[in-house]
């Protein structure tokens, strides 16, 4: 039998699923004792070049409350042409089209390798993709110019039948009518007035004209959506028009006096965009793309006033309840986000400014609708330009890597219930037999809506084992889960992707080893992190950290081996060995630490954390550091200050940043120009190697990371220095310097770091829990305490002492 590692990897590749536990504890009680919940990371649209979609519709279980889809786990009676639903055990007739099936002539969905299968729905007219640009004009001239170029470029990337629309805003909001010839026409709205969807549609004249026309000419083909929307037109018709229009776009002409911010009506602009699509194309895949160069300064959704002397809210202000506009603005954007989600549209936010732009308030627009969030310094940077371009990249079939209006339904076998999901989704509030009463993340439903997706969008889905302890599951019993994702493919087809998985049940008392061995610590770390980040959105930071700590300790308690009064004896099995270290970095990560981050940055980081797949998420939790030297091939090194050596080049990938750092000597060499001398060509190669590697990462990543090329003593070196464990500067109780990065030694010897963790855990187990823990986390505690309390001392503070 293959190892679990292989099994996990295989499953991930085939189904896009990583479970925290791959053997499931068979009773509710035991499951809760496992600390890490039974959960999975699901990448519903994981790219499967080897999986061509089938051109027919799925066969459903006939029980109305079930409607599970025929899958390889079903019992099939080929003779009677019957199949038994593996969720509700209903026996179903095959539909007439399946009369020819037999053991040797199976439809694809019954074959084991098609545990994930994609159906193309032929019904209904295909609806075109819709792209609605919402463009801020309160930009600097060169910024606007760059943005205009990017937008014009994007037009050439869109499929010719895609509908596009343009809304520009500054002090006013302009909805451009694209159909007209000659005069360019736009509808203008005051940026200060909140309008209802009805009002917006009335004012845009969207409400009535289409109807009587149709009645008058019943014979005409139903072209209704195209007729009624002068604001959204097929790109092939208005390509030139729109290009000109974008070309003529001017900066907001209203004067901005000194000491003021420009008046920017982002809230109203977004509201109009939402209202426009709501009225014209409900339940059709559409992207609202918001490009903004600063914070909303007026009207509903304003984040900061126009007085420059009043800075935009900081975490400190929020703590002090000093952020005047935050609550109201958040409410406004939440309302919009929910409406958008209901309509199946998604909102992207491209915010490029040196200061904050109000992402904190606007985040829900992207988070709830599955839109992108991109943050940059200027539209005139390659970061924005390439990120934006990457939105329109195509897959191996030449289709956009985006999907719209998806609903994800989760069906479980009886022993399980769905507790919730965390990711770019909203609840559809579908109650059913498999919905748990306990919520983890967005719960209380078995269906979620994900308005915008790409092949890497990943949701964390949390389950609850509900089987009672006294109702044992027979040996070899398997639990099953079916994920049904209906979505609009970028080729405008409607598709259904079905993934059905099953895992063995195990009795936790007798077969704990099995369960332990099937633990997927990477998945578990990400799933726990998602829970933590989800909590952090609504709870105080320290509470979340305490909760995480407690979970870690409980997990170690449960699965650690330990001889009494011998801290060094503490052991975790291989399948758990990395987990504490992930938690350690998670605690320091910008997802939970707000110190040194603006509220916008925090929102941005959390946004991406909640949607990336496992690999990317792990990088976010624990950045990767590679070291390049003459001594050998590049090697991963410990994320620690001790890794910063004079004769090394470091490449750090934090997901959001890629830092190339030249050690002191290397930097001097370069300055001396050795790389240009033929005899030092190897030095030239050394310099080039990290650049090439970085380029490789840059090519693939979305959003494009901030690319920093620096050297010893350079001002940008802070990006590296802030991430590494400052063991060299803190004379700690333990010799951090000797710790080797676990990633390095994944297969090999025991990492000191783990030892340390074990030490604290074991100490914690038998002594004063809290205190030990504080010591143990050492500077980490100090660090976070600084940020939260702002007082800079950690010792002896009751806040720290009461962690558990």
């Amino acid at each position, binding site marked *: 039998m293959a190892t679990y590692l292989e099994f996990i990897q295989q499953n991930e590749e085939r189904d896009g699923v990583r479970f925290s536990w791959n053997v499931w504890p068979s009773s509710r009680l035991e499951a809760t004792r496992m600390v890490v919940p039974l959960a999975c990371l699901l990448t519903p649209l994981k790219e499967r070049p080897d999986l061509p979609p089938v051109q027919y519709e799925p066969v459903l279980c006939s029980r109305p409350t079930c409607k599970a889809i025929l899958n390889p786990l079903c019992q099939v009676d080929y003779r009677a042409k019957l199949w038994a639903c593996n969720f509700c055990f209903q026996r179903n007739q095959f539909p007439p089209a399946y009369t020819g099936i037999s053991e040797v002539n199976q439809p694809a969905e019954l074959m084991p390798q098609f545990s994930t299968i994609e159906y193309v729905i032929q019904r209904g007219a295909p609806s075109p993709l819709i792209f609605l640009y919402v463009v801020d004009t309160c930009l600097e001239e060169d910024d606007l110019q760059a943005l205009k170029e990017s937008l014009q470029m994007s037009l050439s990337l869109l499929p010719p039948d895609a509908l596009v629309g343009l809304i520009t805003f500054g002090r006013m909001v302009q909805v451009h*009518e694209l159909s007209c010839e*000659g*005069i*360019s026409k736009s*509808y203008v709205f005051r940026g200060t*007035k909140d309008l209802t969807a009805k009002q917006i549609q009335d004012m845009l004249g969207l409400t009535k004209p289409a109807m009587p026309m149709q009645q008058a000419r019943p014979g005409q083909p139903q072209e209704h959506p195209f007729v009624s929307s002068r604001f959204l037109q097929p790109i092939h018709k208005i390509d030139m028009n729109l290009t000109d229009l974008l070309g*003529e776009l001017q900066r907001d*002409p209203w004067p901005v006096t000194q000491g003021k911010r420009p008046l920017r009506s982002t809230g109203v602009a977004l509201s109009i965009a939402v209202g426009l699509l709501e009225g014209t194309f409900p339940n059709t895949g559409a992207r609202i793309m918001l490009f903004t160069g600063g914070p909303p300064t007026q009207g509903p959704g304003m984040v900061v006033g126009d007085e420059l002397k009043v800075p935009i809210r900081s975490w400190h202000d929020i703590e002090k309840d000093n952020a005047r506009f935050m609550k109201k603005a958040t409410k406004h954007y939440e309302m919009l986000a929910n409406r958008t989600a209901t309509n199946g549209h998604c909102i992207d936010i491209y915010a490029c400014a040196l200061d904050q732009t109000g992402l904190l308030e606007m985040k829900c627009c992207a988070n709830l609708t599955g839109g992108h969030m991109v943050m940059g310094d200027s539209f005139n940077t390659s970061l924005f330009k390439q990120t934006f371009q990457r939105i329109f990249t195509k897959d191996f079939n030449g289709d956009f890597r985006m999907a719209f209006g998806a609903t994800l339904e989760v069906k479980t076998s009886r022993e399980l219930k769905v507790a919730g999901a965390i990711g770019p989704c909203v609840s559809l509030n579908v109650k059913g037999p498999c919905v748990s009463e306990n919520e983890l993340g967005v719960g209380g439903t078995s269906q979620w809506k994900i308005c915008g997706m790409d092949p890497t969008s990943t949701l964390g889905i949390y389950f609850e084992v509900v089987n009672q302890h006294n109702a044992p599951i027979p040996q070899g019993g398997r639990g099953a889960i079916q994920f049904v994702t209906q979505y609009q493919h970028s080729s405008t087809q409607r598709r259904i992707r079905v993934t059905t998985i099953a895992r063995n049940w195990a009795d936790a008392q007798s077969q704990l080893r099995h369960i332990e061995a099937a633990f997927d610590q990477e998945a578990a770390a990400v799933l726990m992190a998602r829970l933590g980040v989800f909590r952090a959105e609504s709870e105080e930071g320290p509470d979340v950290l305490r909760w995480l700590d407690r979970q870690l300790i409980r997990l170690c308690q449960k699965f650690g081996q330990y001889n009494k009064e011998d801290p060094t004896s503490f052991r975790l099995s291989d399948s758990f060995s990395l987990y504490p270290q992930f938690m350690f970095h998670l605690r320091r990560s910008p997802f939970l630490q707000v110190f040194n981050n603006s509220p916008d940055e925090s929102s941005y980081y959390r946004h991406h954390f909640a949607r990336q797949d496992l690999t990317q998420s792990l990088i976010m939790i624990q950045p990767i550091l590679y070291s390049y030297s003459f001594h050998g091939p590049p090697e991963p090194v410990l994320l620690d200050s001790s890794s910063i050596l004079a004769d090394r080049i470091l490449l750090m990938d934090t997901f959001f940043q890629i830092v190339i750092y030249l050690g002191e000597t290397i930097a001097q060499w370069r300055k001396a120009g050795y790389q240009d001398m033929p005899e030092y060509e190897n030095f030239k190669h050394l310099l080039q190697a990290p650049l090439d590697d970085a380029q490789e990462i840059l090519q693939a990543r979305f959003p494009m990371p901030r690319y920093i090329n620096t050297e010893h003593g350079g001002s940008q070196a802070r990006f590296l220095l802030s991430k590494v464990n400052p063991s060299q500067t803190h004379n700690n109780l333990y010799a951090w310097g000797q710790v080797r990065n676990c990633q390095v030694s994944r297969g090999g010897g025991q990492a000191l770091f783990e030892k340390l963790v074990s030490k604290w855990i074991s100490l914690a187990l038998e002594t004063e829990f809290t205190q030990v823990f504080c010591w143990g986390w050492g500077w980490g505690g100090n660090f976070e305490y600084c940020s939260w309390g702002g007082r800079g001392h950690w010792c002896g503070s009751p806040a720290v002492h009461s962690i558990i």
Partner: protein
Amino acid sequence: MNVNQSAPPVPPFGQPQPVYPGYHQSGYGGQPGSTAPPTSYGAYNGPVPGYQQTPPPGVSRAPPSSEAPPASTAQAPCGQAAYGQFGQGDVQNGPSSTVQMQRFPGSQPFGSVPLAPVVSQPAVLQPFGPPPTSAQVTAQLAGMQISGAVAPALPPVGLGYGSFGPARGPQPNYGSPYPGASTFGSQPGPPQPLPPKRLDPDAIPSPIQVIEDDRNNRGSEPFVTGVRGQVPPLVTTNFLVKDQGNASPRYIRCTSYNIPCTSDMAKQAQVPLAAVIKPLARLPPEEASPYVVDHGESGPLRCNRCKAYMCPFMQFIEGGRRFQCCFCSCINDVPPQYFQHLDHTGKRVDAYDRPELSLGSYEFLATVDYCKNNKFPSPPAFIFMIDVSYNAIRSGLVRLLCEELKSLLDFLPREGGAEESAIRVGFVTYNKVLHFYNVKSSLAQPQMMVVSDVADMFVPLLDGFLVNVSESRAVITSLLDQIPEMFADTRETETVFAPVIQAGMEALKAAECAGKLFLFHTSLPIAEAPGKLKNRDDRKLINTDKEKTLFQPQTGAYQTLAKECVAQGCCVDLFLFPNQYVDVATLSVVPQLTGGSVYKYACFQVENDQERFLSDLRRDVQKVVGFDAVMRVRTSTGIRAVDFFGAFYMSNTTDVELAGLDGDKTVTVEFKHDDRLNEESGALLQCALLYTSCAGQRRLRIHNLALNCCTQLADLYRNCETDTLINYMAKFAYRGVLNSPVKTVRDTLITQCAQILACYRKNCASPSSAGQLILPECMKLLPVYLNCVLKSDVLQPGAEVTTDDRAYVRQLVTSMDVAETNVFFYPRLLPLTKSPIESATEPPAVRASEERLSNGDIYLLENGLNLFLWVGASVQQGVVQSLFSVSSFSQITSGLSVLPVLDNPLSKKVRGLIDSLRAQRSRYMKLIVVKQEDKLEMLFKHFLVEDKSLSGGASYVDFLCHMHKEIRQLLS
């Protein structure tokens, strides 16, 4: 049967009116056929040579035709010399020498005349009961007496003139016992074969005669304003003005140029003291426009106390070092830079070099202190706001307008010798939503911005909305080309109104300038928006206490809006093209309060109304305007301006605020005493208008006028001006209808008029029989004019007059000047075929009465708004042919609005005359050809104001009798 009488003793230019002799109302009897079948008319005899001899005063003209009835000719002599004799304010207004009485019968060219009356008489009188009734009052024209004998008869009658309302009873037999002859005791006139039994229309004062006399007497030499308290020539007289220290009557006209010294006297006389001021009046090319005086940084020199501006009446004392204010007597220092020595008469040596010391009207350049926010204004802007709803598109209005604007924009008003106008323009179209246009010169195509948030109007763009015409010409042309196309298929019928004005005002505010909105609007604004109106027209309200609501705005929203407009200096000109009720009363609130104009083209059709609309538009766009103006009238101690009438807004009791003021707008100011006046020093008026010129220059225009003061009532009556008085009274009454029932307003007018005349009779006229009606010379037309006011559509609407028409006229009259009200209330009726074709001058007018029309003639009638060409049924074929290019009367299209362009002297002359009439008026008068006996004739007859009107308005004669009765009641 008084045949002779009915064959009217023709006034100098009278026509025989065989059908309706004497009693002019008859025509309305509805039996014209029976009375005067067209066939029975004699042939047109053409102009008679004798006719031309009319003018020489005092020369008796022999009846040119032997057929002329000899009968009553002598009865109503009207020697023009006689008028001359009375001249200005000769005390003797009462019965006087016989010479005056002579009115010569004039020509009687029409052979058939004598016959007709016989036939017609019964029919004529039929509607009015006993035929002889009204004939008893005989007038001695020149003496202005109506036989005293009438009087006794009146009391028993009682009801006789209750008739001014619709309920007109049969006329009692008052007077019948009196043999007319006896009443003429003192009248030595020519022999009268038969005693007249009724008041002869020719014997009562004739406006035509008065106008003609004034023209002859005063038209020839310039009116020099140097002398205090001079009564200027009538508005109908062409005269030149030489400014020698008082403002030209073109700028200011007063009801009286002699003000009673005490308020008691004023109260006794009841003559309103008012000045009709037209601060930016256009002058004929021969007269120089006011000089502009630049006093540099110190600004205009003013009295420290009352702030009056330096003017010729200021007294320099102490060798020129100080001056005493002529208004408040405060003694001020003369600033050193202004010092000048005095000559031996106490006048400054440089008096004649300085306009402000020698002229009645001049301008100062204002300094920055006189500007809003202490900033010199930017050049004003014009915004064209065009209704593009279904109605406007369908009627062709939008296309027409856009086409016209393309060329019209080259003629924006400009200052002096400026190469191009400083005025910027902007464009808005609208229906239920507003469309703004960006016409920035750098654009290849205009950009349209739609604002649908009409509840909360704002201006969507800043840069590119208001542009310089020459810079953005290409874009503007492109826009005007495209507007009609863009909306060609519109189905939108609803419109908004208040948000449109609001938008224009906000645009000016954003551009920080004053300006004018040109609104072209078609329908009642019923779309959901502020200022939304409902159709509340209700004819049942007429003659009830609620009638006033028809004149009041429906909602207060427009007043509020107007206030904001005034504050911004945003003047609104409204062009209405209604097909039905649009509530002019409400829509005109903003134009009215912002000093704008309203033009109304009911049932607009391009073919018929194009010329009129375009001409009005051209004139309106091109005329010189002042923006963001404030006017203040200062007076010397003793009197004070207390009331103001016109198109403006007042936020306090003294400052007249005008968002815009053009050369046609008039402000009427009423004065009251607050102290005794001094005969010696007289009374002074100074009207100061602070405004922004069309080039954006801030200026002050000053008009000064000195009036005499009198202790004798006779002086007052001798120096009155009836036209101005009527102007004031009409405005007073038209404002009154907003607050009181129309009947009350009318009664007030009649009472006041009676009091004025009674006071004269009591205090000034020489003793005479109580039964005599004696009118002051200067006011002898007061009754006829007042009657016209009383009969006007606003105060006594006919069945065909819509509520909108009344509201429209009401607001028009509010800012009319004296000349306009004069012709508006008493239209000019010009016979076209009487005078020889070769004569270059305008034909002399005839009185506006049906009995003056001859069916063999063609007449033009104009009142400043309407122009009719009346064609008699028996006009010679040749005339028909040469005018209309058709062969017979019956082939003339009734309602025709354009005369064919024909190359013959008559056609040329008539068209030339029409053109010259139009040129005289501020609005284009659309021509309507009316054929005798045609249904359109009703419309025409409405303007024959001396006749009894269908709506119940009294005839001149009846009204005069009524007035007489009122006076007698007051006297007794």
